[in-house]
């Protein structure tokens, strides 16, 4: 019995350490964002790309000497660049997430409602597409954007985003778990397919819609590859790409910008964590 207690105490300690490790980078970013730029430069020097060369080992500092809103006022009020890039991110990611969910929910219903040979083949095609990395899919996307003249516009990123097969796959898996009898009963009562879809299927899948939507949002919110290749015009780049280009003198601002950048994700996560966990129950690769 004693041994068991010791064992569970050790497990608790291990979990605590792990949890702190996983939280550490986020918390440190958050804390540093309240330092003044001078303090950031003094503490971290050229580790964050500023002029001052450091010879002493860097000391991680969680609590600022003086809590200052200087960085935030710079990001939010004084330099329009960051805000504009933030807005770019919103304009790219929100339409992608919403339309991808809409298109995917329709398609998933189509796949879940009836299963035939042809549909199994099409679904298999979606899985293959899902497995292709950006290195492969960006090439056809680039050609499409070039021919239609959409290269260097937001649409070049948004359109392929909307039709990404990721949520089709996950939502189909979820909708197939709904008992067939629900659909049949509704149909016998004279409900149209659209009515079955919107009145029965969608409400039953609400938590997976939220969960999948969050995954899509998080993924595209941090995107780098697509804008780099499809948007040559840097004025259209999202904040994820721009954050990387901190220059001397702006070091302090970067932390505040990074924090501002993760706030929408944090809020969404807090809103949908339960749904995210519930919808993670689909996990096999069967077509």
């Amino acid at each position, binding site marked *: 019995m004693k041994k068991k207690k010791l064992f569970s105490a050790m*497990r608790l300690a*291990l979990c605590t350490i792990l*949890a702190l490790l*996983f*939280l550490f*980078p*986020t918390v*440190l*970013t958050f804390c540093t964002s309240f330092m003044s730029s001078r303090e950031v430069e003094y503490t971290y020097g050229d*580790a*964050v790309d500023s002029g001052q060369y450091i010879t*002493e*080992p860097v000391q*991680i500092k969680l609590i600022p000497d003086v809590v200052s809103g200087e960085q935030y006022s710079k990001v939010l009020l004084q330099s329009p660049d960051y805000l504009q890039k933030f807005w770019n991110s919103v304009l790219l990611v929100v339409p992608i997430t919403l339309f991808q969910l809409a*298109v*995917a929910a*329709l*398609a998933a219903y189509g*796949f879940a*409602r*009836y299963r035939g040979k042809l549909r199994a083949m*099409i679904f298999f095609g979606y899985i293959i*597409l*899902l*497995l*292709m990395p*950006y*290195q*492969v*899919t960006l*090439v*056809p*996307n680039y*050609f499409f954007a070039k021919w239609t003249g959409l290269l260097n516009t937001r649409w070049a990123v948004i359109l*392929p985003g909307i*039709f990404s097969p990721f949520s*089709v796959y996950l939502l189909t898996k979820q909708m197939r778990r709904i008992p067939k009898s629900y659909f049949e009963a509704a149909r016998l009562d004279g409900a149209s*397919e659209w009515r079955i879809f919107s009145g029965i299927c969608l409400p039953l899948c609400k938590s997976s819609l939220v969960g999948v939507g969050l995954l899509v949002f*998080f993924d595209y*919110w941090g*995107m780098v*590859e697509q804008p*780099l*290749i499809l948007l040559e015009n840097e004025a259209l780049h999202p904040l*994820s*790409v721009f*954050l*990387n280009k901190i220059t001397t003198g702006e070091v302090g601002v*970067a932390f505040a910008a*990074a924090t501002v950048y*993760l706030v929408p*994700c944090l809020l969404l*996560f807090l809103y949908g*964590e339960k749904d995210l*966990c519930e919808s*993670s*129950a689909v*996990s*096999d*690769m069967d077509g």
Partner: protein
Amino acid sequence: MKNRLCTVRGKSALFLTPSLLGTVILFVLPFSVVVFYALTDYGSKEFAGLENFSRLLQNDAFCLAAKNTGILCALAVPSAVILSLLLALLLQEKLPGKSKFRTAILSPLFVPVASVVMIWRILFHDNGTINALLTQLGADPMDWFRSGAARYMILLLYLWKNLGYHMLLFLSALSGVPREINEAASVDGAGCWRRFFKIQLYYISPTILFVTVISFISAMKIFREVYLLAGAYPGEALYLLLHFMNTTFHSMDYQKLCSAAILLALAMLLIIGVLYFVESRFGKDMEER
């Protein structure tokens, strides 16, 4: 009866059309052009057979990029699968504050990598925290950005970002293992490890394949982490396929670009096919037992 079936089939097919149209226009049709470019000669536009591919395989930059991408995947995929499974096993049993721990480990999922690269720069700087730690332990400090050690720095960022979600997938798979079987084995005196290898592993083997495939997909996306940490022109150890594609896009060498894309697509299919095969064999073995 048959007639009725036909209408359900036909009507539900309509739901597929928006997605299918978009996929064909955005991915399938342009991809046939990719195939066309890959098989034609740059100047004369004539059929060139596999010439573009052999030219590509002799290209040093491509080979370096392919090698680095391969090494990173070989490091990232097994460690992601094993570590996330261990995390899930650690968190599956009763523990005070369990859901808090889960949230903490899951939290990197929503944090954009771009937001924490500065922290990585601080940690892995020549005079950074990690090197200070290494010196204290009596080891030599490392040049994390330019030497081969850079891979491990990237690997750590990848694991930090992805382990949480993979753990979540394993957790929900583990909760699907019937409780009675687990308890019966426990009563019969089977320990933790024995229960895991004899019972749970069988139930979660489809999830293991799924997580392997997912970590493979996200490992191919490691370019994101590398670009944010080391820029468009990183050290030799971190020059990846997407760096190669990126420069090729700008030089507009479509033949090179398209044959690279096709080679990569074939490689992905091959690897995932092998994984799938192994899982189905393995699953069968377990069933026969």
